[in-house]
């Protein structure tokens, strides 16, 4: 048992290391992703100015801009990773090694979250500096807790989807491409989720970013009033979602890996 746990930790560490330091090797990657996030944020801030909404909307957009890189990392850096490993021919090597696939994915999530943090903080910094956005730091510890629980839940969802991507090929990749923008919109990245209405909100609440962002806005934006639920309830729901996703991920990974082995799809490339 101890040996298995140590192997899990060593695999986690090895995959997280590559994700954190590998992504720092090219300065253009960091600069481009920060600039991309900043431009998206600027677009929505100027849009709100055109619409004549209050200045508190700039704060909402900056927080959305902070969380969006995590969402993109979950989708393209975790959910699709096993598909890319398969396409590059690494997956078969990973599977014949004694390292558990779940440790590999958790390592990927930890590493992904850490390297995305740098980019998100840069986007946040530029948002605050350029658009003169003000946040309250009175509830910073609670906000940090909400943020970490949101990440736990988001990356859990990413691991759930990674097992689907393991089995499916380009169709899953196309689906991710199709749902990326609507999901980002529905999660209320650039407007308060409450405006979605009850029906859409029910669906959007399954995306951890939706409630996570709403809770963060309650805690950090002083004039934010259009909340979905009290942030404490949202925190509880996020913990619940995280646990459910972790359970589904563990089950799905095992069963899809078995199914993919049986149907000989683990080495099937370019499909």
């Amino acid at each position, binding site marked *: 048992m101890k040996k298995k746990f140590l192997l899990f930790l060593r695999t986690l560490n090895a995959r997280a290391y590559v994700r954190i330091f590998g992504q720092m*090797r*090219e300065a*253009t*990657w960091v*600069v*481009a*992703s920060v*600039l*991309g996030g900043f*431009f*998206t944020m*600027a*677009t929505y801030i*100027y*849009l*709100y*100015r*055109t*619409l*004549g*909404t209050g200045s508190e909307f700039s704060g909402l957009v900056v927080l959305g801009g902070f969380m969006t890189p995590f969402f993109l990392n979950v989708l393209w850096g975790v959910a699709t990773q096993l598909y890319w490993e398969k*396409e*590059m021919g*690494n997956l078969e090597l990973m599977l014949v090694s004694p390292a558990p696939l779940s440790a590999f994915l958790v390592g990927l999530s930890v590493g992904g979250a850490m390297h995305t943090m740098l980019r998100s903080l840069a986007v946040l910094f530029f948002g605050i500096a350029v658009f003169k956005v003000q946040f309250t730091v009175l509830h910073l510890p609670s906000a940090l807790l909400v943020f970490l629980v949101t990440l736990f839940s988001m990356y859990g969802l990413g691991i759930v989807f990674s097992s689907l991507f393991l089995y499916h*090929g*380009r*169709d899953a990749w*196309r689906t991710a*491409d*199709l*749902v*990326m*923008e*609507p999901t980002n*919109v529905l999660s209320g990245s*650039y*407007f308060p989720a409450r*405006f*979605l209405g009850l029906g859409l909100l029910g669906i959007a609440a399954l995306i951890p970013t939706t409630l996570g962002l709403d809770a963060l806005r309650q805690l950090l934006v002083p004039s934010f009033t259009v909340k979905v639920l009290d942030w404490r309830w949202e925190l509880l729901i996020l913990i619940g979602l995280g646990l459910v996703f972790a359970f589904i991920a563990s089950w799905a990974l095992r069963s899809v890996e078995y199914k993919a082995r049986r149907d000989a799809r683990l080495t099937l490339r*370019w499909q």
Partner: protein
Amino acid sequence: MKGFLASMYIGLQIESNWTKKWVWLLYLAAYPIGSFLTVIILYGVFGQKTGLLPYALYGTIFYYSLSMVFFDMAFSVHDDREHYQTLKYIFLSSTSYRTYLCGRAATRYLIALAGIFINLCWLVPVLRLPFHPNWGYLIAGATLGYLVAAGLGLAVASVFLLTIKLDVDVVDALFGGIFVLSGALFPPTAFPAVFAKIAEFVPLSPFIELMRRAISGKILTSFLSDMSTFQLLGRVALSAAVLFALGSLLVSFGSRQAQRKGYIDVTTAF
């Protein structure tokens, strides 16, 4: 021409052969929704009184059509070299690399336009958008718009040919900046004066405004309102000629240099 058509066919296969035809048709119709969903929600909730919904919606969908061209061109270098590992065979074929890129992107453009057309069939009556199309301007604008986007795409593709580690995030950042400045989503009059002036000279701005006027039959805001529709068409034609020539030169140069440096078949697994 034969090479261009063959490249268009390859583009169609890449875009569509991952699923059944009817699923792909649904995908084609659903794909553009992500581009304008935010516009509908934000202008629907906060901007009803501004009357800017048609401006933003038409602007966004026509920007989306061009974005498919330059993203496809930039991404196909990476995709063919790293993913499918076929770039070396494309270079060995008798079709020039520029023709191949243009053919593939043309398919993507036509698919995007088809998606837009399908969505306009319900958007126009449901949102009561002004719709008095001038087909002449629309067809001329769409053709010239393709050349504008292809010129930009070829320029970016040439950079990708000469680098092996550059990520497609660079394309996101570059065209994210152009999107903000082009006035696709809101009139650039919201910007500080300097940026508002720069917005008039962004190559995509006149195209988007031309297409807005061509489809709605109206001048929707004061942005570029001092120019007649014919003048806008002239400006788009000029941008198309300059950018396409520049992009062609750059991609020819990039292709030669990439072959010389051995970048055609390098895989990095990045």
